[in-house]
């Protein structure tokens, strides 16, 4: 049924211990003509050291502005099975939890309407169904929706929010990352499905500063669980670690960035007011140390990959926010920043780039946030800054120098 290609270069990649993507393509190719031509074209790419995909054209599903990425081959004559080879993004469940029944449904659906090839998962977190033709998009989306699934985001939209597995299986989760992600996804369905922003907007939520979802490197809005209480210490368990051979001084005390831990061989002491909440001691002494309430989140803004102004990491805009349903405070904040970004952002300008271009003051003012030292590593060094007319009228020193 499917065409067979000689793939000597790709065959090399079936050797070795790590599971082979070539084997995966071959499995699909055995019963699917699209997958077979994908294999053929890929071998040619390996021979010629160049990609053979065209710039994506616009394809879509009625009622949606995104969720599908058009993809066409440059070599449609030679590999007609991949003439169209579109990607469908399906919004994953929070935390990437599945069950067998569900995954079989996805497989059945994709064998019927697509190439049989998938990505679990795409970089943003969606299930990625890899390779279908334009005509299949409407029925595919319909069946997904019939069964409780929806498309993910693409283009200049809110992208599918994602999170770490949080309270589902982690003792350090200080916020309910799964619920926050589900709730924000439902709240902003319109912004997710109908691109209306200057560019993409990613929200990633993680339960603690360990950041197992790389939110600080990848999310326009990073929501990172944290705590304000002291670290609770089970001294016996600390001693157990020492007995089992851990060098507490070297492995814990010396690595503390706040230099706030001491260990006398019997007792671990933490000066919590100097704690930087880095989680090193807590993770390395699992079960012995524990953050305590108040719990909440630090919000950070602006991470992105290099284009256009260079890579950025997210930076602090709210040191601490309580995160309780219905999450009204963060929803209001998100709408405020989107309004401003929609008004001032240039085409393809991420929100972080806009803040850097127009300054933190304007951003904080539109968001109703006060400036705080936690937003900066250090204050500015060059003696150039702005004053508003209102600033000039104020005499704050009369207060703080009293």
């Amino acid at each position, binding site marked *: 049924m499917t065409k067979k290609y000689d793939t000597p270069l790709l065959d090399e990649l079936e050797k*070795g*211990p*790590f599971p082979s*993507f070539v084997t*995966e*393509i071959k499995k*699909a190719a055995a019963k699917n003509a699209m997958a077979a031509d994908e294999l053929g074209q890929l071998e040619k790419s390996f021979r*010629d*050291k*160049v*990609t053979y*995909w065209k710039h*994506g054209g616009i394809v879509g599903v009625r009622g949606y502005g995104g969720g599908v990425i058009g993809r066409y081959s440059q070599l449609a004559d030679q590999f007609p099975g991949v003439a169209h080879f579109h990607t469908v993004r399906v919004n994953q*469940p929070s935390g*990437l*939890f*599945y*069950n*067998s*029944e*569900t995954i*079989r*449904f996805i*497989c*059945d659906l994709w064998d019927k309407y697509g190439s049989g*090839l998938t*990505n*679990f*998962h795409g*970089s943003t977190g969606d299930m990625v169904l890899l390779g279908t033709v334009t005509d299949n998009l*409407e029925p595919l*989306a*319909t*069946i997904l929706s*019939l069964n409780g699934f*929806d498309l993910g985001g693409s283009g200049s939209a809110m992208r599918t929010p994602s999170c*770490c597995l949080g*309270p589902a*299986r982690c003792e350090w*989760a200080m916020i*309910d990352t799964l619920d926050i992600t*589900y709730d924000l996804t439902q709240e902003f369905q319109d912004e997710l*499905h109908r691109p209306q922003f200057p560019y993409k907007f990613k929200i990633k939520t993680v339960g603690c500063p*360990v*950041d197992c979802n790389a939110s*600080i*490197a990848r999310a326009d809005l990073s929501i990172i669980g944290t705590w304000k209480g002291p670290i609770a210490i089970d001294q016996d368990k600390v001693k157990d670690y020492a007995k089992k051979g851990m060098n507490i001084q*070297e*492995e814990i005390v010396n*690595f503390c*960035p706040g230099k706030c831990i001491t260990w006398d061989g019997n007792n671990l002491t933490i000066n919590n007011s100097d704690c930087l909440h880095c989680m*090193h001691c807590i*993770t390395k002494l699992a079960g012995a140390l524990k953050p305590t309430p108040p719990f909440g989140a630090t919000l950070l803004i602006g991470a992105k*990959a*290099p*284009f*256009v*102004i*260079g890579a950025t990491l997210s930076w602090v805009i709210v040191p601490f926010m309580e995160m309780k349903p219905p999450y009204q405070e963060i929803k209001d904040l998100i709408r405020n920043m989107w309004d401003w970004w929609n008004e001032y952002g240039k085409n*393809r300008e991420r929100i972080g780039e806009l803040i850097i271009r127009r300054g933190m003051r304007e951003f904080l003012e539109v968001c109703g946030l006060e400036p705080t030292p936690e937003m900066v590593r250090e204050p500015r060094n060059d003696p150039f800054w702005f004053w508003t007319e209102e600033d000039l009228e104020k005499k704050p020193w009369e207060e703080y120098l009293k």
Partner: protein
Amino acid sequence: MPYVIPDVVDVKQRKTDIGPPHYKNFLPPVIQKNYGDWKTHEILSPGLMVHIANSGDKIWTVRVASPRLLSTDTLRDIADIAEKYCGGYFRFTTRNNVEFLVSDESKVNPLLDELKAKKYMIGGIGSRVSNIVHTQGWIHCHSAAVDASALVKALMDEFADYFTTKETPNKVRFAVACCTNMCGAVHCSDIAFVGIHRKLPRIDHDNFKNLCELPTTMAACPTAAITPDPAKKSIKINAEKCMYCGNCFSVCPALPIADPENDGVAIVVGGKVGNLRKPPMFSKLAVAYLPNTPPRWPEVIKATRKIFDAYVAGAKKHERVGEWIERIGWEKFFAVTGLPFTFQHIDDWTYAFKTFRTTTQFKWTK
């Protein structure tokens, strides 16, 4: 939930904006019961850990590697295994591993046995190499300067021992991006690989006006190297300013930049995303260029070995690659890896000054 795939699809029936299914549908009962109430966990072997709830309940997790690109055959196999040992429950990690969630301790070893028998690669938990975050490469991307899956395969084969058994001082996070657009967090990984171009885009003047918008194309250039060419209704590129990033091609198909003989791979090192010990760090340039040599990129593997082995030999326990380099200093990094330091390593862009060494503090390496 009974899933339905009707033979006849009435697309007008379709509801929009229903969002994803609720995650509770997919949580094993023991997780539902102990949600948010976990006490601790233990890593029992490189591919096995157990989480213990305050209630005393436990759940075992078995992790196996996945190439991320999965056929429905393999997905069904995973589903079958999960059904057999896990009540059907499993998940994926953000680094594309598969995790089987076992509620019944007696099923842990049989599961491990079946996975071994089926040649699944078990491991990746704790201070070792985990699976590689990567992009699409030549499989599915129009702007890939290098393949991603093949690089991942070659790297993971090379460092397989460090996934399945051996330890490293701390986790080593690899990442692969097939072009400088860098879908994924390559800019913050321990050792990462990015496809690069080294020649100017070729301007297809005839097609520019049909395929591209002038302002968008100009704005896509990080160095303002693109200016209008009104006579041709096209653009000009200032060769002195172009850094071959390919972002203009991303917005304008009339500016192809791929070049089989000059494209290749750069290696960046020392990034991290977690806030553990040191704040998150960007990856920094270690090797400016290695050639594209499919199917297994042996030069890239060799250079990676140099970095990886120097890290394993030199880092203190718990130090990530970036922390190790920061402690020993970049002059020592280049000395102990034997990699050359070239003009390309010295930044010359927006924040260049902030990377210059404005101190006499350095170590003698020769």
